[in-house]
């Protein structure tokens, strides 16, 4: 019996993939510029939102996330002596550079109207904002559980240290880096599939 051979995809499918790669590369620099300009504002939004989320889990409220400059911030424990209250410094901008990938991927999809692209990008950005707030929440908990030496050992057990440590590791690397792909696949997965299903009537693309 003959081995099944992969069927070559129709030409429009091949062109679609190549067009997407080209469009994404073209969109990369403009998207990066927009992200770079919005970063100082977004950093503030992120710090305030994460601090408020942290306060939901604290009584009394002991965490503050003051800015050091446009890109860096501190984790501050208000119940520590003032000279030692700034317990950790981190680069906030590093938490959300996946917006560049997200924007380029969503704007680069060929064959759909701009209105739909922007609408899908808006939904994806909203989900990403919530993810970033949650990531920063985990980051601060990770600092408390594992980075404060004896204080961490006294206040967090082995399970808690592993929970916050692994949670931060998974959120900060795989899920942060793959979030744009996950969201893109959520919206456009069918466009990658073989065209065994009815096609959408061709719409004006840009």
């Amino acid at each position: 019996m003959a081995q099944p051979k992969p069927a070559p995809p129709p030409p429009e499918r091949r062109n679609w993939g190549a067009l997407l790669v080209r469009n994404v590369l073209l969109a990369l620099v403009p998207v990066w510029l927009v992200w770079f300009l919005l970063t100082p504002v977004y950093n503030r939004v992120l710090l305030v939102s994460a601090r408020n989320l942290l306060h939901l889990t604290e009584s009394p409220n002991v965490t503050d996330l003051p800015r050091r400059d446009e890109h860096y911030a501190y984790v501050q424990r208000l119940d520590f002596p003032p000279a030692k209250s700034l317990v950790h410094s981190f680069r906030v901008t590093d938490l959300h550079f996946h917006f560049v990938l997200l924007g380029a991927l969503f704007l680069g999809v060929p064959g759909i109207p701009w209105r739909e692209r922007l609408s899908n990008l808006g939904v994806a950005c909203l989900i990403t904002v919530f993810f970033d707030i949650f990531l920063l929440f985990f980051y601060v908990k990770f600092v408390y559980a594992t980075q404060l030496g004896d204080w961490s050992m006294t206040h967090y057990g082995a399970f808690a240290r592993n929970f916050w440590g692994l949670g931060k590791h998974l959120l900060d690397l795989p899920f942060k880096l793959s979030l744009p792909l996950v969201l893109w696949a959520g919206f456009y997965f069918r466009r990658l599939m073989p065209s065994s299903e009815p096609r959408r009537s061709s719409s004006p693309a840009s």
Partner: protein
Amino acid sequence: MARNRETPASKPSSSPEEPFWRRNRREITFLVLFLVLLGGGFTLISVNWVNDHAIEPFTAAIARVSGAILGLIGQQVTMNGTIISNARFAVNIRNGCNGVEAMLIFLAAVLAFPAPWRSRLAGLGLGIVVIQVVNLIRVVALFLTGVYYPKLFDTSHTVVWQTIVILSGVLLWIYWANRYAHPPRETAA
């Protein structure tokens, strides 16, 4: 950009009365499989034994190759494990800088996508090589940035090059899934 270009299927063939999970079962299956494989892969490499016996030697090999390339382009570098240094600058290649993250994302996406195994293996082989080549360029470029433009190092390290390495994996996957990961053609016996 393309005008009035035909695109692959975008509407489900199932009826709108079907429940959400059934209408979108292929997307859901892909996303669940992808996240499980990705979480499993990253949990695996966070185990100390795996890190010490697989990831660290792999990272040291990347450092050696990067050091050799830097030597070829005239940089007087010395190597010490995963550290590349010269008189002006030193970098320690750690997890996050060895391309393993991009490789795992690519691997999880290829394995979760419905495709023949032959296509998957070909895609994995080629994709991993391309990702590692991009990562080598990144390490060399970052070292040179640290030597000649140290103020740009932080931004270049995470924002620019991490985006480029991950993007290369994502675009490779999309290109592979769109062009090569099609189902086998039925042939007569």
